[in-house]
């Protein structure tokens, strides 16, 4: 159902639907929904020109709560559906909502192919390192050894590094944010919306029922400063309660230094256009449980301006029309060699 409102000055509320939001109390999804609504309201989108496409999962319930057009499709296929939609309706703003299971397990193939094709679609990957909707099995992002319903003795799979995988698939926009940092998330959402091409945003999202605290070390006041690194274009990589630490590149190896001990230019300056550096950033993926590992980066890792699939597709059509002229049905039907029977 939809109710008419004047879309002049949208507020976050206008983007809500009449449906009860059915996530568990305390679920990280709420905050993401909120940030999305306010970001889009600010951006002053047209509701009728916006479409949310999701697969299946707790996260994939998202479209029901946005008063735009929306498809809550089948497990893993949201990116494929979005591709067909964007290919035929380039003017629409298309958002894909997916989870770590939906996008990386059953939907892995469609994800990597849409990244390389680079439709202008924004993909929000809710990573809670668990299958929430099916009540708690491990996912392709769960750390090895995780004890879940399906792995009472601990999971065996070496997990995916989602952003590294996306780099490998030649994504043109890669970012990471977290449910517990609304401001940062809004900024990333804005940037993704602005990027022309496929944007992949991994959001660390807490499933407080089946995997509570998976990202606590990055979100908890006490530990956040030590373990997170917020990327700022053109700025050195620094972190710590007083920004006392920085990252320096030693050949191919990032290492932590005391800002005090080094001169500014020794520090790694963030350049989201540098693919080599971006690849290394995605590899700053130490197990947080590990002693003095590297901090986990958040923000925009990489962005590149590459042609959009829907554009070149349209160009070919326009070109064909230019060369052969608007298709004429009778010409088409009769083909090249006709004979008359009298």
């Amino acid at each position: 159902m939809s109710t008419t409102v004047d879309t002049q000055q949208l507020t976050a509320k206008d983007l809500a639907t009449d449906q009860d939001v059915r996530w568990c109390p305390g679920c990280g999804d709420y905050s993401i929904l909120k940030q999305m609504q306010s970001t889009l309201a600010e951006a002053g989108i047209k509701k009728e020109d916006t479409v949310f496409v999701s697969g299946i999962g707790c996260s994939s319930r998202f479209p029901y709560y946005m008063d735009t057009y929306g498809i809550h499709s089948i497990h893993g296929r949201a990116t494929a559906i979005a591709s067909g939609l964007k290919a035929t309706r380039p003017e629409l703003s298309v958002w894909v909502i997916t989870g770590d299971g939906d996008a990386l397990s059953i939907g892995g193939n469609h994800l990597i192919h849409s990244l390389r094709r680079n439709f202008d679609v924004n993909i929000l990957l809710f990573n809670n390192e668990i299958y929430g909707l099916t009540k708690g099995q491990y996912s392709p992002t769960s750390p090895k050894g995780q004890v879940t319903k399906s792995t009472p003795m601990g999971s065996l799979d070496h997990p995916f590094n989602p952003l590294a995988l996306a780099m490998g698939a030649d994504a043109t926009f890669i970012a990471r944010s977290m449910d517990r940092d609304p401001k940062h998330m809004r900024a990333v959402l804005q940037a993704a919306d602005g990027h022309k091409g496929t944007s992949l945003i991994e959001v660390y999202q807490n499933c407080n029922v089946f995997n509570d605290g998976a990202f606590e070390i990055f979100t908890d006041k006490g530990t956040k400063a030590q373990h997170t690194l917020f990327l700022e274009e053109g700025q050195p990589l620094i972190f710590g309660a007083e920004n006392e630490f920085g990252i320096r590149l030693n050949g191919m190896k990032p290492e932590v230094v005391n800002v005090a001990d080094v001169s500014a230019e020794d520090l790694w300056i963030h350049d989201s256009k540098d693919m080599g550096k971006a690849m290394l950033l995605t590899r700053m993926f130490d197990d947080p449980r590990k002693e003095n590992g590297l901090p986990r980066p958040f923000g925009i890792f990489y962005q590149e301006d590459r042609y959009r699939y829907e554009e070149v597709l349209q160009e070919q059509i326009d070109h064909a029309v230019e060369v052969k002229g608007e298709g004429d049905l009778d010409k088409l039907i009769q083909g090249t060699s006709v004979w008359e029977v009298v």
Partner: protein
Amino acid sequence: MSSVTEKKEDVIILFAGDSGDGMQLTGSLFTSTSALHGNDISTFPNFPAEIRAPQGTVAGVSGFKLRFASMDIFTPGDEVEVLVAMNAAALKANLDQLKVGGTIIANTDGFDKKNLRLAKYDEEANPLLDSSLDKYRVIEMDVTKMTRQALVDSGLGTKEIDRCKNMYVLGFLYWMYNRSLDSTQTFIQEKFAKKPEIRDANLKVLKAGYYFGDTNETFTTRYDVKSANLPAGRYRSIMGNQATALGLIVAAKKAGLDLFYGSYPITPASDILHELARHKNYGVKTFQAEDEIAAICASIGASYGGSLGVTASSGPGIALKGEAIGLAVMLEIPLLVINVQRGGPSTGLPTKTEQSDLMQAIHGRNGEAPVVVLAPHSPSDCFDTAIEAARISLEHMVPVMYLSDGFIANGSEPWRFPKAEEIEAIKPRFADAEKDLDDGVYYPYRRDEDLVRAWAVPGMKDLQHRVGGLEKDFETGNVSYDPENHECMVKVRRAKVEKIADHIPLQSIEQGEERGDLLILGWGSTYGAIRTAVRDLIAEGHQVSHAHVRYLSPFPKNLAEVMSNFRQVLIPEINDGQLVNLINAEFDQRAIPMNKIKGLPFTAREIGERAKEMLVK
């Protein structure tokens, strides 16, 4: 010198050679020439499963069967009259199809020791030398030698020269059947415009073959197959996949929509993708997806966006689309799913024809997920059926399955094509805020008298709504777990499909009386064989009729009644009995199956004989 010319009504030529010998091209060139000559034609290409099976072996033989006649014909026919055998394997593989007294045109060069060995002829045996071919008329010619001679000073290498061999044979056959070289010459000129020396070589050899007949002493008979008295009109020859592609383009235009074709290549469906990709200037968007699931999902996305979304594959790929088809059933949006069937199960016989995916079309999904199922019955009928399938899908907001098969897809026939303006417009039921908003609220799943919901697509102001694969409330479309609502929605989705029977033609009798001893009921590509068989049976005075079902779900309302007017009903299928199963599940009258599961179409004779067995009873 003069040569006798003999009239003929109906000729079947089988061009057979190594996959490298270009027999498919030779066949299709002779086809268009005969078509232009005004004959009725029917063709059946038969290639090996491998891209290139081992040269010279029976597995590597590629054949093209062409039937052309001065009367109506509906199949490529049974007995071959002229067999062109470019090598020993080609002869071995096809001799059984040649009728006694038929002609063999043998390329002697293809019968050397090596070729005989590869064709697995016994030591020292050479059919051209021993008496094994006495029942036939054998015309030997050393095509290779003569082609090379013709091109000694062409400056081309032997490899290129030998590629012209098929033109020599073609030229000779043109002479033999009094055909003009024009259309073939034009073809060569266009095709090799950029390679003058190749062009000239082909033209030269083509003529050489023709003159060989003219000048050579040995053959003095030529044949003349007058143009058929087909209904007056303008004709072209068309292949099934091509006709399907054209139908889709026309349907989209007639509905005022863009066409989106999401597909993943698979034999024998790929040619539809190839054909559509050539017509981008008609606003056709083709999308080669990463797999069949992505292909159908992209098409669903396109349909949701307001295009005519179409996806196509063959059996194995359709199996992968089952879950997504269920989604489209639940969303109640238009979607056309094309299955160009091939031999199954599993990878099966990819290059052979079969009708064994009917049950999959009807039942191959989880839950109660009814769809509409249509099947074209001949190459040109693909055009009409594709448009009809699109019409139903767009006007009734329902996924439609379209079941073609390898025989139809690759076969060709003359087509008296319509004028675009004669084709009826398709009217999707788009939503409209003006009338559909109910004090400010939009109810996306409200239905009209046909139980069809309106099509609200992104961009339509104030009609924003969410759809999905979970059960939805009858009115609001919101997710609903209510027990009564679920039962209601399951019934409504089925009733919507069944109501389509009010919008399709009643089942007609193709041929024969409204009542009689035997009704031969067919679907899909068995049309030609049944039609021919029934014509002959009637001619012999039997009370036999032919009805052909295009609408397999829902059935035409009067189907049971049509059947009830016959003592017996026979259902020939290229499968182990599928339509017969549906009929027997639904109606009390029991139909009798006739099945052939050899990757090959029925011959009229097979059906005729089976019918007679039943009639004596």
